């Protein structure tokens, strides 16, 4: 079983999260891989462990910061890390990113065939959830997305897909692109030995030229959308009361005054 996992560096969200399981406290050099990608790494590791042999390869696309995403994947136990880094990638929309990732997947696939590409269900910064589908289309592979479970038997992948109106079971022959939800598994925590090993591991850095992508076909200039303006929303101005017997009434009055109740 040879599995490639795509991971993304997400800068903001992680900084104000906290662990409940009392495990590793993250420091700056632990990096900030999109948390939902941990489920993708876990799914890949579990499949390879169950198969008894194979390899998990983590790939990320982005600027110098992005390397910490694959470092995190190394800490979790992937065997090889690739960072596609090129100035021309900056400003890519989801279609540009998918094009670059697909090119990297194809290069790895040519070295030796890949059975699955596994991704997280979304990145917690942008949260558009569009990348897994775009990657499947770019590769022209089967799309098995939003998997809350994943199994592979005799060259066929099977997922369960929990949609609001139905729970589906969907199958496709390998190779396939699978996105897993946070219901799919419980990601492991890196231990000290893995953290130290990941620090020493070599991350391969590939340019666009090395994966055969024309720089003008990606990046800001090729993006189909541009941000015209971005501004912080005004913070809410909370009225907080402590209940001394009047809390319920005050809450009701707040709603009634605003026509909300």
């Amino acid at each position, binding site marked *: 079983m040879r599995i490639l996992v795509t991971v993304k560096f997400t800068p903001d969200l992680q900084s104000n999260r906290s662990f409940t399981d009392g495990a590793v406290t993250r420091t700056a050099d632990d990096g900030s891989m999109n948390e939902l990608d941990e489920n993708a790494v876990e799914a890949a590791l579990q499949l390879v462990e169950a198969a008894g042999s194979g390899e998990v390869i983590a790939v990320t696309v982005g600027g110098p910061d992005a390397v910490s995403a694959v470092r995190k994947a190394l800490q979790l136990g992937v065997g090889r890390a690739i960072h596609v880094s090129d100035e021309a990638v900056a400003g890519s929309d989801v279609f540009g990113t998918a094009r670059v990732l697909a090119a990297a997947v194809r290069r790895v696939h040519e070295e030796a065939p890949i059975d699955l590409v596994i991704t997280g269900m979304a990145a917690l*910064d942008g949260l558009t959830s569009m990348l897994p589908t775009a990657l499947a289309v770019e590769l022209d592979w089967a799309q098995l997305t939003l998997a809350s479970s994943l199994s592979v038997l005799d060259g066929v992948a099977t997922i369960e897909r929990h949609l609001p109106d139905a729970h589906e*079971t969907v199958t496709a022959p390998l190779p396939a692109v699978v996105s897993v939800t946070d219901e799919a598994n419980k990601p492991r925590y890196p231990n000290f030995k893995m953290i130290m090993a990941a620090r020493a591991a070599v991350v391969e850095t590939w340019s666009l030229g090395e994966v055969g992508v024309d720089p003008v076909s990606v990046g800001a200039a090729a993006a189909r*959308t541009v941000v015209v303006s971005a501004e912080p929303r005004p913070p809410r101005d909370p009225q907080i009361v402590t209940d001394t017997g009047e809390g319920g009434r005050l809450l009701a009055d707040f709603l009634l005054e605003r026509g909300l109740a």
Partner: protein
Amino acid sequence: MTRVAVLVERHGDHVAGPTLEALTLARSLGEVVAVWLGGSPDSEAVAALGSYGASEVRVVAPALRLPAALAAALGAATADADVVLVDSTFVNKEIVTRLALATGAGVVVDAAGASIVDGRVETLQTVFAATWNVQTRIVAERAIVGLRPNTTQAVAVSGAPVAAVVAVDFEPPTTREGVVHVEAVEASDGVPLAEAPVVVSGGRGTGGDYALIREFAELLGGAVGASRDATDEGWISHEHMVGQTGTTVTPALYVACGISGAVHHRGGMQASGTIVAVNLDPDAPIFEIADFGVVGSLFDVLPDAMARIREVRGA
């Protein structure tokens, strides 16, 4: 004139609220058609779509489930459209990604609005857990926009002509994927969580007792939500989970009861119109984003609040 196609969402035979909102927004962009995928609309649905501005209802009859097939069907029905509007659900995001790759369209999902500026679609979104407002211009000639529910007020057109029903010729493509089993999820009573104008959610502070949460939701005409903690405990089914990986909600009113407001939960509700929180812990992060908060027990506060609302309504 800009041609706008709206993908119809429905509950059984009924047109869903977000579609009426999308049709209302579509009218401000140009000439509107509705696209019905799977089966055929009854006369009531056609009337509803017409009264919110669709001049045509294009029907693609085959029942489809896979994103690849649905995208092909939507593409067949919208070949002449400059703008395609859909409800911003996980499934629709997959469908429009494929449609965009097939047509070269630019895509914005989770939009709170759209307008035409100098011949191109511009959208408004709130991002980074609703802490930023972003205006995005779709520079591609064709645009696809996924709209969040409750961001446009649905308004019918008085005296709208009856929409014409047009069958779209469509042969489903062969797909690599196959759906081998489908188990329908029983629809909960009332408005679906994602579309509800009011959401009352309970978390760890409920201790698993949702009676007051349900009662308050019913009183306010809303849906019941939950935090990840509560669904993980098995207190309430996963369909009720509000959060970045569960259901993202943007109701006019969000009431968080016994929910601390972990970052994942906030990301799924922070764009709500008015946020009210009840929590025993004065340091709960939910209070940072609340418009009104009560530090106290939901088991004291909710009964008093409901009594007061009933008293005023009855007066």
